[in-house]
């Protein structure tokens, strides 16, 4: 059973996390547009990110894990490996990918494509199913 103030805390946290994530995306887009319209070619954050992703797979790999973690299929999906074993497996895989990326130049799409299903099935996030409206009624 949830305490009433827990719902209040949850609503406040949810609001601030959404505000911060939206601000983050907005700042990235604005910075990118500003840099895309200046005199120097190839200096936008997106272009730099893509070039860096060719040198090291760390960002596409972690981004793939996070996307799979967030948008896995099925709400009742359990991790294929029980915690904390799944965290250890993810850590070991990350070290292996980083080491491999130091030896072989990986195309940026490959770590993303491999990491997303791993994030989905080894690290699926679980959360409540209630629709926003139902939660608002709970809070009231």
């Amino acid at each position, binding site marked *: 059973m*949830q305490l009433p103030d*827990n719902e209040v*805390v*949850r609503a406040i*946290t*949810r609001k601030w*996390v*959404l505000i911060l*994530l939206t601000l*983050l*995306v907005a700042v990235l887009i604005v910075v990118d547009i500003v840099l895309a319209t200046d005199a120097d070619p190839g*200096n*936008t*954050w*997106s*272009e*730099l*990110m*893509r*070039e*860096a*992703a060719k*040198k*090291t797979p*760390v*960002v*596409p790999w*972690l*981004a*793939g894990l*996070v*996307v799979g*973690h*967030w*948008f*896995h*299929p099925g*709400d009742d999906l359990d991790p294929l490996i029980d915690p904390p074993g799944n965290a250890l497996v993810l850590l070991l895989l990350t070290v292996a990918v980083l080491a491999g990326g130091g030896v072989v130049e990986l*195309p*940026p*799409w490959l770590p*993303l494509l491999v990491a997303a299903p791993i994030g*989905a099935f080894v690290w699926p*996030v*679980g*959360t*409540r*199913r209630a*629709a*926003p*409206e139902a939660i608002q009624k709970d809070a009231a």
Partner: protein
Amino acid sequence: MSLGQGAATIVGLFVILALVVADVVLANDSTSDNAPSQIVRWVGRYTAVVPFGLGVLMGHWFHPDDAFDPILGARSPLYLLLIGLTLGIVGFLLRWHRRGITPWPWAVAGTVLGALLWPV
């Protein structure tokens, strides 16, 4: 790796690590379902715009080939924006915000369209 590429990598890493740290802290506090991942998943279940938008960014950054040009020409990103707006409106009309949706196909669709219409 140039200074700019290093900075982009560090910013990308910082964002992901900040999310992971916030996730671990908030997943283990006394309030349930308030970690950023749980909130993103929860929001993504009631609007396709969130998984679609994040997918677009993935396709935009990590598309398969540097030689890729937007398949619909210079206006392609504008079409992408229109698709996103249409998704938001269609979702509202179909009451996805009450019924819920499966988010992963929208993330996949966003990734494909981000690569085809807005490759960096």
